[in-house]
C-alpha cells in the first residue's frame, strides 16, 4: 500500500469539467511531479460536489480545505503555500456572501451545512472510476446482504416499509412496483434504469451516474434479485458523455470482480447490465416510450394498463426506476428501512435532490430531507436572490410542474404538498424567479418546450399544446383577448384529461399554476397591454426622461436604427415608430435617463 499524506480531490463532473477542471488537474500533476511531491500527495478525480457555480472545485484532505474557482495559474501558489508550507491559500477559500471571513473546511459552509446526503453521499468523495473506493464506503455490501440473508420477498418488504417513492416524477411507491413485477409470471424479467433526464435545468441523475455509478449498478442487481430478473438496462442519453463513460468503466470493473455476471457471491444469482443510449427526446423519459425506444423502435408511449410490471420490455415483466431512486436502495438495505423512514414527512420519506437554477446565488445540486421548506432551500442553502432583488416564484417539476408564489415559501416540500398547490416534485429541478421574470413569458417558455417535445401520437397533446402556445404567444405580443384566458383553461383541462402519457397530462401545469397565482400578470398583458416585469418586447416602450438626460448623445450613437435624435447638451428623444426595442440605449446610458415601461 502506498501512503499519501494528502489527497487532493478535483471535481470531474460535467459542471467543473466545462469550467476547465481538467486543465487544473493536469497542471497540478505536473507541478507535484516537478517538486517531487507526487509520491506523498495524491490527486483524485471525483464526481460533482454540487456547488457548480463555484467550479472548478478542489478539496484538500486531511484538512478538508475547500478551494473554489481554481484556475491553472493558481496551482503554483497552492503547491508552494499549502502543500510545501502548510498554509492554505486564503484568497481561494469560500466566503459566505454576507460575511467578511473565509471558510476553511467545507462542512462549515452554509450551502453544505443544511444538506443531508444519501443519494449523493459518495459524490465528491470517491473516485467513481475506482470500484475499490466504492467498496471502501460499504459498496456492494447491500447486495451481499440480500443474497446471503434475505429472500426476495424480504427485500421487497424492506423497500416498501422504507417508504421510498419514485424520484423521477410520479412518486409511485418503489416497493409496490417491485412487488407487482415479482408477482407477474414470466420466464424472463427485466430491470430498467431510467437515466433519460430531460427536464431543463435538472441534472441530479447525471451527477449520480458521474459521481457514484456503482450505487446504481448495485441497486439494479438488488432489484433483479427481488423480482427475479437477470438482465438490466440503463437507458441514458447520449448527451451525457462523461456519465456514459463512467458507467461503462463501472460495469467493466463490476464484471471483473464478479459483482455482475454469473453466480454472484456463489449464491446462484446471475445478473448483468447493458447500456442503451437515448437520442435525447424528452418523451423517452416516459416509461412506456423509453421501453419502446430500447426495443429499437420510435420512442412513443403506449396506453397503460398493461403496466410495465406486467408487460414491459419485449412484453416481459419489467420494473423501471429512476437513477436517484436506485441510488437510495443500497443505503436502505445497509442501514435498515427504519433509518430511511425516520427522515422526511409522513408520506414522503428520505431525502430529495434538487437542482437549483435561475435567479439564485448558489446554483448547483443539493440534497435535503423531504419536508424542508422552500425558504430554507432558497435562502439558507441557495444564498438568496442575487442583487437584492425580490423573490417572485419558484418553478418545480420542470415543464410538468408549476410555479410556487412567495406566499407559499414556507410550505414543506414533499410529493403531496406540491401536488396540492398545483405543482409537482418532478425530477427535482428548481428554478427561481425574481421580480424581473414575466410569468406569462415563463409559461410560454415551458409550453414551447413541451409542444416541441410532444411525440405527436395523440391529438390532445399534439394539437392542444400547439393551440395553447399560439394563445400565449399572442398574449405576450399584446394581442390577447379576454376570451383567451377561458380558452386556455378549457384547453388545459382537456389536454390533461385526454392525453395518452405523462408528457401531455402535465404539459398544461405551468400555465394553470401561473393562471392561478399570477392571473393579474395575464390581465395586465390583455387589458392594459403592459408587461409588468418588462420582459415582453412587444409591450414595451423605451423613453428618455428629459430631466435626467444630459444630452451626451451616447444613446443616439449606439441606436442601430437611428431612432434617437436631439441636440448635444439638450434632452434626446426616441422615435417609437423607428424603435426596435433592442435596449441598447438603456444599457449604454450612464445617467439612468432611459427607461422602459
Amino acid at each position: 500500500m502506498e501512503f499519501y499524506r494528502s489527497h487532493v480531490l478535483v471535481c470531474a463532473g460535467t459542471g467543473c469539467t466545462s469550467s476547465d477542471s481538467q486543465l487544473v488537474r493536469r497542471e497540478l500533476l505536473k507541478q507535484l511531479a516537478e517538486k517531487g511531491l507526487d509520491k506523498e500527495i495524491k490527486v483524485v478525480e471525483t464526481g460533482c460536489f454540487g456547488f457548480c457555480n463555484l467550479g472548478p472545485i478542489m478539496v484538500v484532505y486531511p484538512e478538508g480545505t475547500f478551494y473554489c474557482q481554481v484556475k491553472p495559474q493558481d496551482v503554483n501558489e497552492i503547491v508552494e503555500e499549502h502543500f510545501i508550507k502548510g498554509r492554505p491559500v486564503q484568497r481561494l477559500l469560500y466566503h459566505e456572501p454576507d460575511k467578511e471571513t473565509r471558510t476553511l473546511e467545507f462542512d462549515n459552509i452554509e450551502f453544505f451545512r443544511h444538506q443531508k446526503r444519501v443519494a449523493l453521499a459518495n459524490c465528491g468523495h470517491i473516485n467513481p472510476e475506482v470500484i475499490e473506493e466504492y467498496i471502501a464506503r460499504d459498496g456492494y455490501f447491500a447486495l451481499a446482504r440480500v443474497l446471503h440473508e434475505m429472500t426476495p420477498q424480504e427485500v421487497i418488504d424492506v423497500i416498501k416499509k422504507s417508504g421510498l417513492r419514485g424520484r423521477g416524477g410520479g412518486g409511485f411507491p418503489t416497493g409496490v412496483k417491485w412487488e407487482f413485477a415479482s408477482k407477474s409470471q414470466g420466464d424472463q424479467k427485466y430491470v430498467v434504469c431510467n437515466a433519460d433526464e430531460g427536464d431543463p435545468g435538472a441534472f441530479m441523475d447525471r451527477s449520480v451516474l458521474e459521481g457514484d455509478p456503482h450505487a446504481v449498478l448495485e441497486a439494479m442487481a438488488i432489484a433483479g434479485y427481488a423480482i427475479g430478473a437477470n438482465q438490466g438496462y440503463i437507458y441514458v442519453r447520449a448527451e451525457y458523455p462523461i456519465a456514459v463513460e463512467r458507467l461503462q468503466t463501472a460495469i467493466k470493473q463490476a464484471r471483473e470482480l464478479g459483482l455482475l455476471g454469473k453466480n454472484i457471491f456463489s449464491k446462484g444469482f446471475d445478473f448483468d447490465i447493458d447500456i442503451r443510449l437515448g437520442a435525447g427526446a424528452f418523451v423517452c423519459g416516459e416509461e412506456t416510450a423509453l421501453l419502446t425506444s430500447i426495443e429499437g423502435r420510435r420512442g412513443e408511449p403506449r396506453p397503460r394498463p398493461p403496466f410495465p410490471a406486467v408487460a414491459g420490455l419485449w412484453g416481459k415483466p419489467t420494473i423501471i426506476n429512476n437513477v436517484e431512486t436506485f441510488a437510495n436502495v443500497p443505503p436502505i438495505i445497509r442501514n435498515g428501512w427504519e433509518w430511511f423512514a425516520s427522515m422526511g414527512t409522513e408520506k414522503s420519506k428520505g431525502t430529495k435532490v434538487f437542482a437549483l437554477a435561475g435567479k439564485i446565488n448558489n446554483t448547483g445540486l443539493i440534497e435535503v430531507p423531504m419536508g424542508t421548506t422552500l425558504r430554507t432551500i432558497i435562502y439558507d442553502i441557495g444564498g438568496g436572490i442575487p442583487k437584492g432583488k425580490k423573490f417572485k416564484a419558484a418553478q418545480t417539476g420542470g415543464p410538468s410542474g408549476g410555479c410556487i408564489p412567495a406566499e407559499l415559501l414556507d410550505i414543506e416540500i414533499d410529493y403531496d404538498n406540491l401536488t396540492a398547490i398545483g405543482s409537482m416534485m418532478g425530477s427535482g429541478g428548481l428554478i427561481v424567479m425574481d421580480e424581473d421574470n414575466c410569468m406569462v413569458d415563463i409559461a410560454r417558455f415551458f409550453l414551447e418546450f413541451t409542444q416541441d417535445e410532444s411525440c405527436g401520437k395523440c391529438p390532445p397533446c399534439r394539437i392542444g399544446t400547439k393551440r395553447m402556445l399560439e394563445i400565449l404567444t399572442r398574449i405576450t405580443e399584446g394581442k390577447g383577448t379576454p376570451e383567451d384566458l377561458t380558452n386556455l383553461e378549457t384547453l388545459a383541462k382537456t389536454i390533461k384529461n385526454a392525453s395518452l402519457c405523462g408528457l401531455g397530462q402535465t404539459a398544461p401545469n405551468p400555465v394553470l399554476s401561473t393562471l392561478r397565482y399570477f392571473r393579474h400578470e395575464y390581465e395586465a398583458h390583455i387589458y392594459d397591454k403592459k408587461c409588468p416585469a418588462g420582459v415582453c418586447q412587444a409591450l414595451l416602450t423605451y423613453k428618455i426622461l428629459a430631466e435626467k438626460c444630459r444630452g451626451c448623445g451616447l444613446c443616439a450613437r449606439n441606436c442601430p436604427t437611428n431612432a434617437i435624435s436631439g441636440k448635444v447638451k439638450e434632452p434626446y428623444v426616441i422615435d417609437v415608430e423607428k424603435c426596435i426595442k433592442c435596449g441598447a440605449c438603456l444599457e449604454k446610458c450612464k445617467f439612468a435617463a432611459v427607461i422602459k415601461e
Partner: protein
Amino acid sequence: MRSLEELKAIKEKAEKTISVRENTGAPTITVAMGTCGISNGAREVLNAVIEELNTRGLANIHVTQTGCPGLCHKEPIVTITVPGKNPYMYGKVTPENVKKIIVQHIVNNQPVTEWLVNLEE
C-alpha cells in the same frame, strides 16, 4: 466475487487508501514547515515520516504541515496529536529519530520523552 470474505478483504485494503479523506479521529503528525523549519531539514523529516508510514503499512494517520511555531532554534519541530490527549512537541527532529518517534509514540503509545521540546531549557 465468490464470497463475502472476498468483498471484506477488498474493503479492508481500500479503506486504508481513502482513510485520509475520512474524519475518523486519527492521530495527526504535524511537521512545522516555516522557512526556519525547511532550512533546518523539515522537508527530509517529512519524507522520512511518509517513508516510515509506508514501510509499516500504517494508514489511519493524518500527516499535515504548519508554519513556524516560534521556536526557531528547536527546528525541525514535529507535533503528534492523538485525539483526546495533549499534543506532544518534538524538537530538533532528524529523519532517523522521527522513525523511532513514530514507532514508540504512535504504534506503542509511548511518547519519547527525552526528545520533547523542553521550554525550561
